[in-house]
């Protein structure tokens, strides 16, 4: 524990790959009689792509929800760069630089693509009600910058040409991409992606894989990823954690995890 804290203090040290960004300790969440997440502990290092896999209902999304403050753990702590963020509200977690996407896509459906991305820059802008309504500084400059940045991000995900289209009107894959663009607008240090490839066809998945890698480089991100698509996870992740019935059953580099009998039994089941 103390060693981890010491490690996290060195977060800005040149040897970044080893710095701990996120540390979950004994995270547990019960719903009534059901233990959705059961005593899960792990660390995520700066700059890595960290995969989270497990069968449906294993508690992966619940873990994401715990990490982003959407639900509170029954017990356990969560540290981000050494600071305890267990009790923070979701917007406070977001303001610290942890952004996420959702398994069942939660875009602001009636808003345009560009508005969706603009909204996510909320924490990086300041103008209040009066400045916004009366067009006083810094509102106009901020508005321009916000839109410009939003367009850049849309361009990045290849949707700049449809910036004014309402989010509900996009196809599934585009909605996923838009959600990633929105999350990036938060200028996060850590990006949590909940099944980003769901609903995409193989070639789209390939593209997505490359995209995630390039985004990580470009924005200097740490990425956590829930994904079912095993090849995608294997090819992309530096380390993989496997959840089953809320418990962490394996954690390690892909090739090690892949061979773990418990994982094969739990996750690949009959297919194994």
């Amino acid at each position, binding site marked *: 524990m103390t060693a981890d804290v010491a490690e996290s203090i060195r977060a800005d040290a040149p040897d970044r790959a080893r710095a701990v960004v996120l540390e979950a300790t004994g995270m547990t969440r019960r719903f009534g009689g059901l233990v959705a997440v059961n005593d899960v502990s792990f660390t995520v290092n700066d700059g890595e792509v960290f995969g989270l896999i497990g069968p*449906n209902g294993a508690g992966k999304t619940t873990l994401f929800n715990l990490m982003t403050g959407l639900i509170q753990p029954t017990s356990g702590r969560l540290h981000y760069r050494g600071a305890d963020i267990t009790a923070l509200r979701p917007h406070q977690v977001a303001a610290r630089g942890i952004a996420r996407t959702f398994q069942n896509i939660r875009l602001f*459906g009636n808003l345009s693509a560009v508005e969706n991305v603009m909204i996510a820059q909320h924490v990086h802008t300041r103008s209040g009600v009066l400045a916004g309504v009366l067009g006083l500084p810094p509102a106009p400059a901020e508005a321009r910058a916000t839109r410009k940045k939003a367009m850049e991000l849309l361009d990045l995900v290849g949707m700049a040409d449809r910036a004014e289209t309402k989010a509900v*009107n996009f196809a599934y894959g585009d909605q996923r991409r838009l959600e990633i663009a929105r999350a990036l607008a938060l200028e996060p240090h850590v990006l949590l992606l909940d*099944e980003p490839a769901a609903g995409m066809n193989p070639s789209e998945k390939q593209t997505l894989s490359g995209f995630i890698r390039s985004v990580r480089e470009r924005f200097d991100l740490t990425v956590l990823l829930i994904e079912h698509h095993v090849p995608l996870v294997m090819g992309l992740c530096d380390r993989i954690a496997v959840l089953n019935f809320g418990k962490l059953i394996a954690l390690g580099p892909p090739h090690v995890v892949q061979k773990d009998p418990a994982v094969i039994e739990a996750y690949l*089941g*009959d297919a194994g």
Partner: protein
Amino acid sequence: MSAPDTASTPTTSPIRQQSGPDNAAHVLLDLRNVTVNYGGIQALREINLTVRAGEIVTLIGANGAGKSTTLRTISRLINARSGQIFYDGRDIGSVRPDEVVRRGIAQCPEGRRVLTRFSVLDNLEMGAYVRSDRAEIRADIERQFTLFPILGERRNQQAGTLSGGEQQMLAIARAVMSRPRLLLLDEPSLGLAPLIVRNIFAVIRELHEQGVTILLVEQNAHLALQYADRGYVLEAGHVTIEGAAAELADDERVRQAYLG
């Protein structure tokens, strides 16, 4: 795959028996060019799908590919934008959902959706809502308890307090209680431990042997194709591949598309 758990083998069939050996050729369900718009996006595009009497047909595909939407459309929970749905030769594209059940199609919905505030017994009774033969219903409930002994042990327990696997069994048993000719199963393996999944699939096979035709939606393609006669692969609302289950299991495209 091991043989079905002997403990769960029923003594008598609770299921309406099919008549005649030529049933296998009889087309029970036929979707023709069905297109569905859902939440502003096109959820299904020109789906064509047939299920013959006595078959197990599986519909596989990734999350969001439109599998559940297909079942919901068949059960008339959502309206198709265009296309036709024939059941037993009659267009059911405009009947009410409860009428669909009356005509013999039962659905076991995704996420189980048992009536959490009802007891196990009441859930099963509700499954037989369209029937009025009280004595027969009683007998059928007892058959379910033979098929799923764990439910029998918990007959008076509130369904909300059951474990996930027990709820899934209850949901299937409840669907069967209407004595359907066609059973629509939506992701029966969702969130369940492998052992339990195996148990449930054994029951599905058992039901099939008793004469129920099954349309099975599964994410676990391996598993589904093991049990099914034929399969359809759904990608982004479109049927991309179809064929005999055994062929699909070996099909490189399926591996590409789904298993990777």
